[in-house]
């Protein structure tokens, strides 16, 4: 069973869009949450969640199993996915 993949993104961020595009092209199944589209407690909860993995709270933050990739780093993403 392949590792769970979760993407924390911003709807206005081009690096996040590139990351989604790459994951789609690679045929990867993933959850994505666009933090800027959330409000109030939900947004605060997500921010602290992201900070657990990426203290800078920058985007995209991509989880592949227990691996964390910050930013649109194509090679690192492929490696984490074992591709």
């Amino acid at each position, binding site marked *: 069973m392949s590792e769970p993949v979760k993407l924390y993104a*911003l*709807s*206005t*961020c*081009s*690096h*996040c*869009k590139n990351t989604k595009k790459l994951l789609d092209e690679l045929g990867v199944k993933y959850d994505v949450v666009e*933090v*800027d589209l959330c409000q109030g407690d939900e947004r*605060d909860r997500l*921010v602290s969640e992201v900070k657990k993995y990426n*203290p*800078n*709270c*920058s*985007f995209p933050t991509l989880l592949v199993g227990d691996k964390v990739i*910050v*930013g*649109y*780093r194509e090679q690192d993403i492929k490696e984490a996915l074992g591709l």
Partner: protein
Amino acid sequence: MTAAELYQMLRKVQEPKGYFFNQDRARTLDLLEGLLINKKRYGYMCCPCRLASGDRAKDADIICPCTYREPDVAEYGSCYCNLYVSQEWNQGQTPVVYVPERRPPEKMAF
């Protein structure tokens, strides 16, 4: 205002300062669209690649053009978003590398 209008308006101001829009027009317009969205959401053009706090004073350093544009373009040839770049970057004379987040975590208002 449309992204295309913003493009023309900003270009006149920024190019003389040595900051050029990414020649990937679709990407540039997409980012400018992001700025217009954030202007509508928050009242100020917060960086489209960073999460706004909604507090203009706390986000002053990431209102586009952000305070990190100058050191980022100097070091990488591009700002964090790849919106503003150097002429060399646009001419393929600078290696295109991912620009890491320069903003100190403590600056984040959440």
